[in-house]
């Protein structure tokens, strides 16, 4: 520890690292996403990409990471690393980082990643950017990203080549530009960690695209077994049990996705609700309804969205067969993205919808479910 100096930036030649999270011996999907993204960053830096994998008996799942771009995987196998613990994982990861000195460390922003990342960054005395949705090294690519995704004027975008760091003009061309939403997504910020290494980021799961799997690269992936020590004295918490549970149905107000049905399901109420449930399931959301569906007894009152029901602002609101009367709109118009399916092309719901499809919900919804499943599988 005494020899570790995170501010000796030039000493960190160990490449780009990705913490590859596994639970119960299965790789989390975000690990593949980050390896794929890490490959791009490593190529932009002209360095190597490594995964770091902790657990018990997990060497068998390490090589698969090579198939998505990892040059090698540091495998830390130990009975005390079977389940995630803050103490055990932080100790081992920090010890290995101090030894091998990576330039960048990416961690999936899962509940575990967001527990581990800050603890490691604090111990290593380096910067960590939380829940990133976009990463760049190459300045050209970064500026193109800003042109596409910001309202910044061109001269402001050009000025991002340098940052003022401790009063000095600092060239950011080799820094990791970590972009993330803040203030509930109303603002975006690109963060750098110019003076310390590794630059660390937790990355929002599902955002980075998984590369195509390449078996030859998987076979070629190097397995490295770093030395580390871990004893019972290092462990301050005890994992009593790990329980897998189906996602509890969240209530409408907190839901990220709400799929609501309206009078349009009247010709086949059960079928319509079933379609809404299926769509809600593939989108990871819950089912709601307009007042008509509640008054008719098709759905219970806790499903009601609108003036006399609940006000929701999910990321995605799907209105199936809802005309969009003012009292319904009052409960959902602040949703981030509104998708409406209605047979009547003059339905008021289309006035506030981001995406409208004029058609029969019983025909459109099954197609939409398949399309979303396919799009998710392709990611």
């Amino acid at each position, binding site marked *: 520890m005494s020899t570790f100096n995170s501010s000796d930036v030039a000493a960190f030649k160990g490449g780009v690292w990705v913490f590859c999270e596994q639970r119960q011996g299965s790789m989390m999907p975000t690990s593949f996403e980050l390896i794929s993204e890490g490959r791009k960053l490593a190529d932009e830096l002209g360095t190597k990409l490594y995964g770091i994998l902790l657990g018990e008996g997990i060497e068998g799942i390490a090589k698969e990471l090579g198939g998505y771009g990892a040059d090698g995987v540091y495998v830390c196998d130990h009975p005390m690393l079977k389940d995630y613990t803050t103490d055990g994982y932080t100790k081992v990861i920090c010890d290995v980082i101090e030894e091998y000195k990576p330039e960048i460390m990416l961690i999936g922003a899962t509940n575990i990643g967001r527990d581990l990342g800050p603890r490691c960054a604090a111990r290593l005395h380096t910067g960590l950017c939380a829940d990133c949705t976009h990463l760049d090294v190459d300045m050209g690519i970064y500026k193109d990203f800003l042109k596409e995704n910001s309202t910044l004027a061109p001269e402001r975008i050009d000025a991002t080549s340098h940052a003022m760091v401790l009063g000095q003009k600092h060239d950011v061309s080799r820094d990791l530009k970590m972009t993330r939403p803040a203030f509930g997504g109303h603002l975006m910020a690109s963060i750098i960690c110019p003076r310390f290494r590794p630059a660390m980021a937790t990355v929002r799961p599902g955002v980075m695209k998984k590369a195509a799997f390449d078996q030859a690269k998987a076979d070629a992936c190097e397995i490295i077994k770093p030395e580390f020590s871990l004893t019972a004295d290092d462990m301050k918490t005890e994992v009593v049990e790990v329980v897998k549970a189906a996602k509890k149905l969240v209530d409408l107000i907190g839901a990220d996705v709400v799929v609501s049905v309206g009078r349009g399901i009247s010709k086949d109420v059960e079928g319509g609700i079933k379609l809404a449930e299926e769509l809600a399931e593939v989108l990871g959301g819950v089912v709601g309804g307009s*007042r008509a569906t509640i008054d008719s007894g098709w759905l219970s009152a806790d499903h009601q969205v609108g*003036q*006399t029901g609940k006000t929701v602002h999910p990321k995605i609101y799907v209105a199936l067969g809802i005309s969009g009367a*003012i*009292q319904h*709109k*009052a409960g959902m118009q602040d949703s981030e993205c509104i998708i409406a399916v209605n047979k009547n092309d003059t339905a008021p719901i289309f006035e506030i919808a981001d995406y409208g499809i004029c058609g029969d919900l019983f025909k459109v919804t099954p197609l939409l479910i398949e399309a979303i499943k396919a799009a998710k599988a392709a990611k």
Partner: protein
Amino acid sequence: MDFHLTKEQEMVRKMYREFAETEVKPLAEEIDEEERFPMETVEKMAKLGMMGIYFPKEYGGAGGDVLSYAMCVEELAKVCGTTAVIVSAHTSLCCAPIFEHGTEEQKKKYLPDLLSGKKIGAFGLTEPNAGTDASGQQTTAVLEGDHYVLNGSKCFITNGTVAETFVVFAMTDKKLGNHGISAFIVEKSFPGFYVGKHEKKMGIRGSSTCDLIFEDCIVPKENLLGQEGKGFKIAMMTLDGGRIGIAAQALGLGEGAINEAIKYTQERVQFKRRLSQFQNTQFQLADMHTRMQAAQYLVYAAAMKKQNHENYSMDAAMAKLFAAESASDVTRRAVQLFGGYGYTREYPVERMMRDAKITEIYEGTSEVQRMVISSHLGVK
């Protein structure tokens, strides 16, 4: 008059508002529709000290002030007229007379349970034949040894079916007229005391309103409130305070209707414009707000005077008169701004309009308020 609220008053208003929005508003439509007393809300308010706001902590009160009590009723009424009157009747008509006129023993015995909201209080003055003319009391109380025997009935008693402690008025000496009326603290469990039929009302339908019946009801002598023959004075003083509560209820109803109308007229589109873009809407809302703002000044001024132990009888009467008539006017205009939707129970303004009407009637009709005000002016 200093209209700056203290930091505590600002904070307590914020708390009432959050509570009203989160706990009270979602129930308002249901308790109106079902004519159901919201006991669960009373229990929550009790925990937060809202059933004994301006009484000292030594009797179990929250240690607040009269204005913070008025603001509580106001904020509740913005979303639910029923919940507001429950607090108002309990506080002003039962807790206040016991606190102001009770002996130390009576205060120690009754106030802790009332102020902590463990028990709900009510007030029994009105009779079928003694409404605005309260001096025509026909309920009698006869002293027999260590107790009084009460006979007669009361009507339109707010909180009647749920209260456990009542301040009740009865004639102890008919010959003396007003000066023969006495006040009593009556417990629900006293023998010969019965709660009668529940009234079906136009508004504040979740509040309990019923008859009280006394058939040889035994009231211990020590439950005489104040002196024998001072009952009418106690009743009038109590109603002075009660008027602040009802004025605050009217104030909240009017303000609540304005809030709903502002929201709705910004959403509703007719003739390709939002209703809020029409000058009629703008002027209506400007007038409505001006009226309620004026009402607020009157209500707060009366509350501050009561807090400072100044004579506030006329102030309370003016506050109630103006706030009640303004609330009726403003809620009616809100319904008009909503058009057909305003007449349906989909939106709360029709309920607010129904709720507002009673504020012109109970705890002294608007006509009584005019009598009080003109008599203070010495106009005879």
